[in-house]
């Protein structure tokens, strides 16, 4: 049963790319004011789950409900999705400010001007990720960590009711990661539901209220402590460490 406190309800979700099954019967519920961490090996369907909740992919069967309805029927601006930074062309003619301002676009009609409130939201988002002093910089002149923070700021400027983050800690330095964690926790404490995929299995208990271990199916789900004790986490953990070694 869906309850009023449930922000995201995923039931028996199956997603296919042509004949490849990316998700095979996944179910999970995320409440308001709850951060869900999604871990699993490469190709386990972590990003697929986020994209389906964002309405970017269609389920082959099963259902996704966000705030009680399918994602594509939500009003513009409801869902903010933060992709991996490789997803765009950073030579695009835009400053840091320009990209963060795009977060306001879904709510604006073509005849409405970019108001003082919109500017304030962009400014607030830039300050919250520590990028206010780089607002006029061209986006091609940013480091990977700064690009990641611009994407997060754009999502915050959108003032969404659901935040989806796809591996935001990959390739960022420890200081950026910690400031991102503090920021995400403050948003969650303010009531925002957050779903985030990660490769980084250290400190999951400081990031998330709930943890989902995914390998096309849900292997484990619960509080980080419960999942660690269940044992299914250990094999993933080993797997992730092997991957990290292979990368370096």
């Amino acid at each position, binding site marked *: 049963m869906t309850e009023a406190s449930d922000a995201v309800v995923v039931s028996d979700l199956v997603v296919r790319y*042509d004949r490849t099954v990316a998700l095979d019967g996944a179910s999970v519920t995320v409440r308001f004011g709850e951060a869900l961490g999604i871990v699993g090996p490469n190709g386990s369907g972590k990003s697929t789950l986020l994209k389906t909740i964002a309405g970017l992919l269609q389920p082959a069967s099963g259902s996704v409900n966000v705030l009680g309805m399918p994602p594509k029927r939500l009003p*513009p*601006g409801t869902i903010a*999705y933060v992709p991996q930074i490789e*997803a765009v062309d950073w030579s*695009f003619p*835009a*400053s840091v400010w320009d990209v963060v301002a*795009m*977060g306001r676009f879904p709510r604006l009609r073509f005849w409405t001007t970019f108001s003082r409130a919109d500017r304030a939201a962009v400014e607030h988002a830039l300050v919250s990720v520590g990028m206010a002093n780089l607002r006029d910089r061209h986006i091609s002149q940013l480091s990977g960590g700064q690009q990641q923070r611009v994407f997060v700021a754009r999502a915050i400027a959108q003032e969404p009711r659901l935040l989806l983050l796809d591996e935001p800690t990959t390739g960022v330095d420890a200081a950026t990661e910690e400031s991102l964690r503090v920021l995400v926790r403050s948003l969650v404490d303010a009531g925002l539901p957050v779903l985030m995929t990660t490769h980084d299995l250290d400190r999951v208990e400081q990031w998330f209220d709930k943890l989902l271990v995914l390998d096309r199916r849900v292997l484990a789900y619960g509080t980080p402590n419960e999942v660690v004790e269940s044992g299914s986490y250990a094999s993933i953990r080993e797997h992730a460490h092997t991957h990290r070694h292979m990368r370096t």
Partner: protein
Amino acid sequence: MIDALLAPFQYEFMQRAFVAALAVGLLCSTMGTYVVLRKLSFIGDGIAHASFAGIVIAYLRGVDYYVGAAIVAVVTALGIGFVHRRGRISLDTTIGVLFTGAFALGVFLMSRQKNYAVDLQSFLFGDILGVGANDLWLILGLGIAVGIATIVLFRGLLYTSFDPVVADASGLHSGRIEYALLVMLALTIIVALQSVGIVLVAALLVTPAAAAYQLTSRFAPMMALAAALGVTSTVGGLYLSYFLRGSSGATIVLLATVIFFGALGIKQVRTFSARRA
């Protein structure tokens, strides 16, 4: 001296040609900003060639060429969008398949005609001096329609050009915006057909915007500069062609090309001096 410089403007057909050049230059280079940033350079060429089939069909049916070309151009543009999204085929492959198919249909239909009298040469290479009063109204009408669509969709087009996936997730419907852009491009190409022709239309969609991209680092200035360079190319090229006694379409494109290399040179000098500083 002044009389000599103003000589091109004394003929009515030249006056019409200059108005057409202004409209075409403005429209193509504004839309070209999206073409360059979304890496759709191939699409202008593709839709323009496809519209050839429409011209031949219109000729066979005794309908206005513009109507035939416009219908086939819009259908091809929507087809490109559909096959690309549904078939998971890359955009350049989709364009390559659809435009050669439509172009071949045009050639096939034409080749079956025994006595064939239409001046297709003028559609391949353009004849801006042949723009009649009715053509001019059509150019201005379509141009205004595309201009209004650009204003209405400005933010959506900008966001989806940079990051279509996130724009879509936030509720902006990237797919619909892409279809709208393809239709706007098809109409722009129809407007440009008469002045620069099928072969050269791609150049007007790409070159001024590519030149502006070298000199600016933000979107709105890039679009404004592209429009200015586009109008300079079309109006300036037409003016020069009068004195050089060369083909107007070719002169327009050559001027645009010269401007592009000038912009590239300025960028190189800027980068060089920035490194030394």
